[in-house]
């Protein structure tokens, strides 16, 4: 992420209240996991929460750092696991995904969008110009008399021509298909990896919808 001018301040640069050393030590002793959602619906993260009470046992072993649940904005160090949902649809997605690859030992693509583009990739068969035109110029729901314009500013991430799966941008280690995958499926994969077992998704748990 680059700054456009010197007056900008990112939220992660603002001072925060330090955590007490005991809690911090407990967190540091756990397996570090970072999560993120790119172009998708956050359904996979909701499915992650669908683990219900199994989540409590999981959180005894893992510390979730950057994620939509914790609202931490930056990856605070070396991570064992990166859990990513959503496809790559703009320049910021690419930069952040590269940051995840640099800082995570293992990256997991979760859900249809991360694996092949999913619902957002439905725009891939339509020229980008036509998509913009439909959304901003010829929009059925446009405010009447408003100036019709396609938003463009250096602060707004550039939209990619096509929505890409994560593995076309960086190397991805494991894939959990599904739209979204069941909580039980996510638990099976995370539990195996956290406990040092091999990744194994049986065909009975595999699904694409």
């Amino acid at each position: 992420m680059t700054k456009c001018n010197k007056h900008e301040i990112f939220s992660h640069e603002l001072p925060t209240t330090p955590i007490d050393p005991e809690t911090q030590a407990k967190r540091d002793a756990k397996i570090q996991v970072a999560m993120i959602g790119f172009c998708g619906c956050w359904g996979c993260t909701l499915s992650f929460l669908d683990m219900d009470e199994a989540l409590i046992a999981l959180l005894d072993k893992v510390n979730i750092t950057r994620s939509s649940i914790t609202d931490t904005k930056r990856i605070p160090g070396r991570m064992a696991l990166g859990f990513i949902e959503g496809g790559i649809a703009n320049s910021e997605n690419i930069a952040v995904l590269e940051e995840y690859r640099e800082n995570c030992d293992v990256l997991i693509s979760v859900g249809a969008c991360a694996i092949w583009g999913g619902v957002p990739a439905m725009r891939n068969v339509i020229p980008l110009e036509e998509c913009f035109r439909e959304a901003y110029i010829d929009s059925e729901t446009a405010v009447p008399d408003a100036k019709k314009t396609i938003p463009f500013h250096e602060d707004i991430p550039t939209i990619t021509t096509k929505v890409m799966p994560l593995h076309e941008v960086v190397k991805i280690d494991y894939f959990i298909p599904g739209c979204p995958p069941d909580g039980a499926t996510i638990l099976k994969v995370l539990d195996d990896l956290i406990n040092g077992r091999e990744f194994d998704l049986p065909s009975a748990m595999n699904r694409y919808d």
Partner: protein
Amino acid sequence: MVKIIIDGKEVNAEIGDNVLEAAAKNNVFIPSLCYVKGESVKGENCLGTCRTCSVKVNGNIMAACTIAVCEGMNIEVNEPEVTDMRKALVELLFSEGNHNCPSCEKSGRCELQATGYEVDMMVSRFPYRFTPRQVDHSSKFIWLERDRCIFCQRCVELVRDKATDQKIFSIRGRGTNARIEIDKSLADNMPAEQVRAASDLCPVGCIIDKSQGFDVPIGRRKFEIETIKERALKGSIDD
């Protein structure tokens, strides 16, 4: 009866059976997409278009549905090289078309999807192409969703006009320009049962019966009740 070897095990097979059927009768599953049990096309009992049933026969890679068993035949099904080739074939189909399972009415009763699960596909190793394909909804009863067509030609050979025996579906163009076409005037004469049968015959969600939507809840759909492998080994007749 002839003796054949499947994955190193000597078993009996009926004369006249193809390798796919013989293996199923001996409890060995070979995935297939174009093969329709009990149907013959121009005297052949297979279409042989999809190649998803490829196995090694005496060391050579062949489509199991196209080969009749013979004495002493050595068939390798679950051998790593050919297993990966079958998986690659399924992955190619997923890359070539636009197979959006979450938005497809056929999901849960789609043979391509069910076969994907059987070959353990999580992601395609090939780049997803997103080729624009035109949907044809001009016919009264059938929605032709070209994004999903895998060119198995089941519909081309097996769906015919009752009165004239003319083909209702055809493939126009070659190579990347090939596309499935529907004869609108013949299709509009199809009785409701034939429309439903054509839709069920399609191994993907390309031929969609306009009167049928998402009518079975998730968890109770065809291949969720019984996987495609279980059905094939049991010899379930397609309903």
